[in-house]
Each structure stands twice: as C-alpha cells, then as structure tokens.
C-alpha cells in the first residue's frame, strides 16, 4: 500500500491515532501528528511512498504536535519528539512540515551508523551516481532539483547513505527542500514540479518542499556506485565552469560534509578514499540552471 491509497480521512485518522508507518528507502518511520500542515504535507510529498502495516518494525517513532499549555493558543508552536523525547527547541506554529523533515534528517544522521552519512545530494543516470556534497547555501538542492527534472533519478536531496563496506549509495527518496530565491527559480525551470506551500521565516529563510519525482520513489531499492563527485557553488556572476578537483581536496570536502566520519574510523577513511579514487571529481560554479544541466548531460 502507498500513501495515496489512503483516503484523506483515513490518513488523518492514522496520523492522529495509531500512527503512520512510512517507508523512505531503508528507513521506516512511525509518525504521529494532529497538525493539518503535517497531514497535508505527508499526503502531498509522500503520496507514492509505501505504508507499512501496523506489525512492521519501525526504525524511529516521531511526532509533531502543538505543545501543551498556553503555547497551544498564544503564538502557537510546534514540537518535534523522537521516541517521546521532545528535546528540540519548538518552532513557530506553521512550521510543522519542515520540522518533520528536519527531524527525520536528524534521526538518520545521528543514529544510522550502518551507513556513512554525508550531507550531500545523490542522483543517478545510467546506473552511475553523482554525488553533490556541499555546505548549506551552496546551491546543492537547487541543482539537485533541476537535475531531478532533467533525466536524473534522485536518490537523496540531503543525506547520502554510503555503504561503508561496498561504497554504493542507498536511496532515501524524500521531498527536496528549497530555500528563498531557489523556490521561484525551480518553479520556472520545472513547471511540472509539485510544490508544497512556502513556509516563511524559518531559521533557513523561506522554505518550500518539492515532491520527489515518481521515478525516484519507485526505484528506491536500487543503489548506485558514485562515479562523479561534484562540489557545486552558486555564483551570481560566474559563467558555468566545471574544473577537475584534486582528489585530496575532494576527500577533505567529503570528510567535512560527513555526519559520522568519526564513527567509522579506519573503514570510513577507506570508504571515502576509495570513493574519490573511483569517481571523477570536479568543482562546479554556475549561475544559470540551463547551463548547469547541459554540462551534466555531458557526463557518462
């Protein structure tokens, strides 16, 4: 069963009641929420994702709710809890869906040490993966969204799950998070894309989520070996430029983008050195998405 098989009423009831067991790639998350924004967000962004039955094992149990007490009514807030523990700072009341997304990222990046988790977008074409590691604000998600509508399959927009033993990337298809100017940029670049509502004034500015294309969700169980590693940089002035990057710098970039490199010790070092040895590594600065997509078309 997938999320869109549930009627809106059934989905709401499940999220309010026993909870929804939502599969995203290798992870099953048990989600509860009474918030309309969360129900609508899941209905829109996870329409094609599998729903596991009540007896299935869930990796994490999370909820997004209004806090008890006055803050339920006066300038309302939302609280994210993992496993009943609400130790994250509450956010303003309309940020329920982004908070769910950030919370799910946190669950994976702080617990799923069976993977080497790197802050990076991953896309695939012809069986080969393209890794886009980059700090926030570098235009990684914008580029990822543009490629996702230009013949590449998205494995993940935010978290690259690398198998430390074999080196392949496991897909974790989830909505793509876009910020500020990127939102309109992608709206005009890919008019067929499905956007959720823009949420204003989050810690990251204005945020809108974009549903991952159906192909990304349907092929979630197909891993891919990284063949290209590209460190993107959005620049308002520069023409698109793809330049080879020294392997050592590519390696250090991965180390800095990894959430749990320290946890993997020697095997983490081996996995990342093997990755940069086998992948073509580039630095890429770009200004116009069309140019960027054309250059990536040349890969392969």
């Amino acid at each position: 069963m997938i999320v869109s098989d549930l009627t809106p009423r059934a989905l709401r009831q499940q999220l309010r009641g026993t909870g929804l067991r939502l599969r995203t790639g290798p992870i099953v998350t048990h989600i509860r929420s009474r918030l309309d924004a969360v129900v609508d967000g899941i209905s829109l962004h996870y329409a094609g994702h599998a729903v596991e039955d009540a007896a299935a094992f869930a990796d994490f149990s999370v909820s997004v709710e209004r806090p008890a007490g006055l803050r339920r009514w006066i300038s309302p807030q939302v609280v994210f809890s993992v496993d009943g523990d609400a130790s994250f700072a509450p956010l303003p009341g309309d940020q329920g869906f982004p908070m769910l997304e950030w919370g799910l990222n946190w669950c994976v990046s702080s617990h799923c040490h069976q993977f080497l988790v790197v802050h990076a977008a991953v896309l695939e074409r012809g069986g080969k993966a393209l890794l886009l590691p980059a700090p926030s604000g570098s235009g990684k998600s914008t580029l990822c969204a543009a490629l996702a509508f230009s013949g590449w399959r998205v494995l993940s927009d935010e978290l690259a799950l690398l198998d430390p033993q074999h080196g392949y990337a496991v897909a974790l298809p989830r909505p793509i998070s876009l910020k500020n100017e990127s939102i309109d940029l992608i709206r005009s670049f890919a008019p067929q894309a499905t956007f959720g509502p823009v949420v204003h004034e989050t810690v990251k500015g204005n945020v809108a989520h974009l549903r991952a294309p159906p192909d990304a969700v349907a092929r979630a169980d197909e891993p891919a070996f990284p063949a290209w590693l590209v460190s993107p940089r959005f620049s308002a002035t520069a023409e698109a430029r793809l330049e080879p990057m020294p392997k050592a710098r590519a390696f250090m970039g991965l180390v800095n983008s990894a959430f749990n490199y320290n946890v993997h010790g020697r095997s983490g070092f081996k996995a990342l050195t093997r990755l940069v040895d086998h992948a073509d590594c580039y630095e890429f600065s770009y200004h116009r998405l069309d140019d960027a997509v054309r250059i990536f078309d040349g890969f392969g």
Partner: protein
Amino acid sequence: MDSDELPSTANAESSLDLVRIALREPDRVRELSASSWERLIRQARSAGLLARIAAVLEERALLARVPAGPAAHFVAGRILASAQQEEVRREVTHIADALRHLSVPLILLKGTAYLLADLPAALGRTFSDVDVLVQKNHLAEVEAALMLAGWATTHHSEYDQRYYRRWMHELPPLQHIRRQTLLDVHHAILPETARLRPPSCKLIQAAEPLEGHPGLSVLAPADMVLHSMAHLFHNEEMSSGLRDLSDLDLLLRHFGARPEFWQGLVERSKELDLERPLYYGLRQTQAILGTPVPTTALAISSRAAPRWPLRGVMDRLWSHALRSPHRTTRRPMTGMALFALYVRAHWLRMPPAQLACHLAVKATTRSLDRAGGSRG
C-alpha cells in the same frame, strides 16, 4: 522481584524492560514480535546498551537470526561503540604520554580499565569519558602536566571549582581543547565528604600493572568490583544504572569463575568500608540479571543490609532505578523512586549542614557553565 514475562500480544502500556530480559536470557529474543523488537531497540538505545546486547546475542549465535529491521540498529550501535573504544584507547595513550615524565602511578578506572585490561565487561561498552585515579598528593602536578598537553577545566564558576576541589573525589572534568574528549581525574572513589571513605592508598597499593602498558595499572579484581558497586549505588542519576549493573554482572561472572575470589571480595569490602555497596551489588545483580553468586557470599554480605523495613524499601527503589531509562519501562512509582535515590545519593555524599548550604547555593546561582548544572 519483577514479573518479566513476555506479553503474548504487543501491549504498548506494559512497562516491561526488554533490555533486562535480553541480557539475562538472550535466548528469549527469539520469541519477540516486530513490535517487541521495536521496544527492545528503543529501550536498549536509551540505556546505552545496543552494542552490549548485540555482543551478548553474538556470543550465543543469535545475532544472525535477528530480523533485518532491528539488526541494522545493532550494526549501527556496534560501529558507534567500537569508535568510542578506539577513541578511549587513543586517549589513554595521549594521557600516558602527557604524564610519562612525572613517573606517578596512573590507575585506569571503570570502563577505561575494562577496555584496556581486555575484560568481558568491555563487550559493547559505550563511553563518554576516560576515568583515571592518581594519588592525592600528585594531583597538582598531574593537572599541570595535563594542562600543558591541552586539557582544560570545564567548570568555570568559582563555586563549582571549589565544590570539586574541596569536597569531591575528582577534579572538575577536563576537556581536551583540540579533540574535545573528556577526562575525569580521580583521587578517591567516593567524595571526601561522603559517609563511606574507602582509603585510596589501599586501592593504589593493590593495583595491578597493565600488561603491555608500562606505567599504567588497573584496580585489583575485588577492588574493581567494589568500585563499580560503590559508584553505582551512590549515584544520584540512574540513567546508566542498568548499563553499570550489566558491567558488574560481567565482572562478577568473569572474576567469580575462580572460587577464591568471593571470600577475598567479602573480606576486601570490610577493609575498604564498602560492605553496604557489596550487599546491594550482589543482591541486585543476582535478582535482576541472574548473576551466579555463591550462597555464602550472599549470606555474609547481607549482614551489611539495612534493617527492616528499609531493606524491602531499598529493594523496591533499586528495582525501579535499575532499568532502561526509556519511558516505556516506567511504572507508577518510578518517578518517586528516582527522586528518593537522588535525595539519598546527596545525603550519603555530604553531611546535612553542608548539603543544605550546597543546595542553597545551587538553587540561587545559575551557573554560566553549560555543564555546571548537571554535575554539581
């Protein structure tokens, strides 16, 4: 003590501690339903025992049979634990290097000792810091040498500094400025102000050199067990209580294989003024984790038990506290039991007048030091 029966159907309201069951009777994990596996993984994670349970299951050849969902968490837990163990081994080398020129005896304590001495209690052990013991008269030079090598104190308020330095059994925790690792330097195993005062010189005298690590020692087996008990049953905060109890269980099973160990343990508890912790330690490991303890050792140690009705009350309190701290293991009285043990730990730590002053200061000052509030 507890009816740790597996529920026939998944019952979200039951307060069953599946971690205890997995530690005591690992074979029973074969009966777990998917929803019980979910509870076990969550309870184990919150108790810091994911990797320990994975190791226990592996020893019984049960790990390969764990369903894929929970198995991934065991893999993740073991990777994390082995990273922490590697880090502790590295830190010990750095500490030994920093202190080598002083040639003062350096004794590793708790998990650090279990790990470096390759004891079974290091199986799947997770770490948040390194613990060492030095003689009190060497404390100043040890601290100075550590500072030169990059360790800095963490508690910056004057009160906290004085609290540690005058009353506690350790320096304020040190943190390495580059590696961010934490180090506790002890000069005793209980606070200076505590009711029980095991003499450190006896511990240091009996310490045994660590093979392959010149200059480093660990406590003698009986002392190591008694320290583990003293620490656990004086702790004001029980969130790693079950983890510590499991350490104790593994220590007792390992050292207790030699029959002469038990008599030595009982005698040593008298010399070290630790008869009451020994009573609690033997009784609770046996009751909760099924640790094999000879009847005579149990009988002799129970002479140090509190009188009726306190004896039964303490059993109940420990049974509440020595569980996974996960919310699904809480019973109706658990909150009160934890509070009672918190008060008890403070009561044992300082004389009443001093405790009153300390609590008054803590209530009226808000420590600027981030870590300050949780320890002092």
